């Protein structure tokens, strides 16, 4: 069989196998997701994986061919009989494919998913959002709910705690400063607000205010699924590893009760 026919058949077979595997596992690459925004990320990953599989198989097969089909026999010192320095068809196809694949990725998922993310910021899409003020300092999180007049929410142990109602869009307003030493502009550093299950993070920059939009879709909490936790993702000094907070996503009823409880704690 001519080399390239064998190669072609193997390429088709292994690519098909690869696609089949992506079909099964592609939507689980994030392990656990709990927001609409994370779904966008998984879809993008899945799409890129599907496109890359045949390209990957192509190169891998070639490496295997080098070690098998094109392997030199023991004692053979002659040069290869197939000497060619160029091949127009191969080069043109190669370049066309890489260019097309890249522009396709640029349109989708890059531009399309990014547009979807930008749309989250439009005022008309933010009529009924829950606003959560997030303050990062070394090495602690503070959560405030200005719409409810609740500040520094805590759990029963007195640790900072983030609670969110399911299926309601949240606007996180992110700031880095030290609420206890507001006069000192030199102490602030960069932090990054990340909840792994939500599929998104945003850095918190001293002197700036940033926002991030998330719509939680799954009711769970840090204890039962640690991927739902608030985690500082940008190194911010020796306390960085400990800059975590517990969180939970609950029904809107429970959320209202929780807010009421927090209010009561605050006033007592």
């Amino acid at each position, binding site marked *: 069989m001519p080399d390239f026919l064998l190669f072609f058949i193997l390429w088709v077979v292994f690519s098909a196998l690869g696609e089949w595997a992506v079909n099964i596992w592609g939507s689980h690459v994030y*392990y656990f997701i709990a927001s609409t925004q994370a779904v966008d990320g998984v879809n993008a990953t899945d799409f890129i994986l599907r496109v890359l599989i045949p390209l990957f198989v192509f190169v891998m097969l070639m490496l295997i061919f080098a070690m098998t089909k094109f392997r030199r026999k023991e004692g053979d010192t002659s040069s290869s009989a197939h000497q060619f320095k160029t091949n127009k068809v191969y080069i043109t196809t190669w370049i066309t494919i890489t260019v097309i694949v890249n522009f396709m990725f640029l349109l989708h998922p890059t531009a399309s998913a990014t547009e979807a993310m930008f749309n989250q910021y439009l005022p008309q899409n933010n009529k009924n959002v829950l606003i959560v003020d997030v303050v990062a300092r070394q090495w602690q999180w503070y959560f405030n709910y200005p719409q409810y007049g609740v500040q520094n929410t805590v759990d029963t142990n007195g640790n900072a705690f983030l609670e969110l109602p399911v299926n309601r869009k949240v606007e996180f307003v992110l700031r880095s400063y030290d609420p206890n030493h507001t006069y000192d502009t030199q102490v602030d550093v960069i932090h990054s607000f990340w909840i792994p299950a939500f599929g998104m993070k945003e850095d918190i920059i001293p002197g700036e205010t940033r926002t991030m939009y998330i719509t939680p879709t799954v009711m769970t909490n840090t204890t039962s699924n640690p991927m739902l936790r608030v985690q500082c993702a940008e190194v911010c000094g020796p306390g960085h590893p400990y800059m975590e907070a517990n969180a939970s996503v609950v029904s809107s009823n429970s959320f209202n009760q929780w807010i009421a409880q927090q209010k009561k704690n605050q006033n007592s």
Partner: protein
Amino acid sequence: MSIGTEPGIGYGTEKPLVLKKSMPPIMKGIIWGGVGFLLANGIVSLLLDPQPGHPFITEPSVTVGWVVLMIGWVLGVGAWEGAVKPAFGRTSNWVAAVGWRRFFEYSTDHKVIGIQYLVSSAGGFFIAGLAAMMMRLQLMSDRMWLFPYPGQYLTTVGIHGTIMMFSVGTVALVGGLGNYLIPMMIGSNSSAFPRMSGISVWLVPLGIFTVAFSPLLGYWTTGWRGYEPLAQQDPSGILFYYLGVFALTLSSLLVALNLTATIVFKRAPGLTWKRLPMFAWGIITVSLLNIIWLPEIEITFLLGILSRIVPFPFFTATGSPLTYLELFWLFGHPEVYIVVVPALALWQEILPVMTRKSLFAREFGVIGLIFVMMLSGLVWAHHMFTNMRNSEILPFSFFTEMISIPTAFSYLVAIGTIWRGKFRINAPSLLILMSMFNFMIGGMTGVFLADPVINLQVHDTFFVVGHFHYTIIGGMVFSWIAAMYYWLPKFSGRMYNEKAGIIGAIWIFIAFNMTFGQFFLLGLHGMNRWVPVYPSYLQPMNFETSIFAFLLGLGFLFHLIHIWWAMKAGPKTEKNPWKSKTLEWMSSRNLAQPNFNELPEVVGNFYAYENDEPVAVIPGEGGVEIV
């Protein structure tokens, strides 16, 4: 006519030894540097800038003291006698040492300098590798146990990354292999500026030691970026980060100036640009990157130092906190191509020899390297998707995705060369295939990272750590080891043990993929970076990843010992065992002789295997020598 024996750079054995050195140059360097440090530090801390309580070592004094130390060290090790005195018109009493001593002092022989760079780089690799082993040891548990204090772990991460990037990634293939091979490959007896090159290599050990001993001044937590505003409130150890990296980047800058001029101006007759070896193309493209971007990061470090020791509020909340990161990555992204471009060139150097087939689509290999070089300055902000303005995301995403096109040309060339070749399986060729495999994974995960919505999830996690170790270890370190085996007969006239080489290659291939493949999974599962402690659900996988990491470390050690053994005691071999056609195989490896007694004239294509016609002729040696 004998060429290349400039007075003062001569080949030791030809002259009788008239002058004995009063002490070994390294001792002299240490003494000059140490005394210089004490004097300068004392003057600053006691007279110019006394601090309350009069501590002897203050931040300004240690900075100034270190600069004087650097100068004293370099001068003492030989630059004073060998280079500075002649530059001021005085006669130099420098006598180059012979035998092993020549490796322990200033030298102007590019082969000696290349070996000095390679050994320094390998030393850096093992110091930083030890740091990696300590990190993995700590990460076997989800609680603090090896290090009592998280700052120590973070300093270890920083030392690891810094020494790996600036003394291995940027140095091994360029300062090391470049200095040794480039003059031979282009048919010259020396590099363009041998004195400068002789000085620059001594900055490498100094830089490595400065970074490795930075904890003397306190644990710093920023990692290899040394990034502001965090650096400003770190303990003073961060100063030794800035200063050590300054020494290392200065060294690479001088190498870049020297090798660029060498390639442009010292080519043998007939060696046109069309015939220039691929490795020389790789070196000249990264050198141009170095010439632009290393001064950029050096001035940025100066801003970092001034922010601390004056202090200036450049990067605080009232200043521009992101400007440091912008400036860092403006250099930092070209830096990663500085690491990998010579490795891509090595594929194209070694594959035609091992397949005995002409290099396919050579011009695309060259174009690929050049376009990677040009685009690499346009993509820096893809390290900053999590903190940039939304309006800037798409352009950077665009350029980042586009850079994969010229990068893929290396695969186009390599695959075209392999196709229907007669692939000879041995340690170097296998390692090149492995490098292609690893870099493919590194590159493909890069496509995911270039996509903003995915990036916002996996940035700052172990996914990214996996990605860049695949490109750097997988791409560059594997190619480096391949090159060490491939040119071992050139370096030493001896051969390695093929079985040991292949077993070692398979060993590190498996250990590497099992280690860093799991980094991707850890990252996707929510493991963030720069943490000695982490949620307990990640512990089992971390434990097992560490085991493979230790195996990988041992595998590298195995290669080091094997290569060392082969250089000393391997079986003697012929001059050109691979029957390669490039010029370095025609030259003399003997340190007491010039590369070429008569300059060769290049008359053909180094990578053409359709016939056995000579590629180069040496006029003096009885007509024509066939390579």
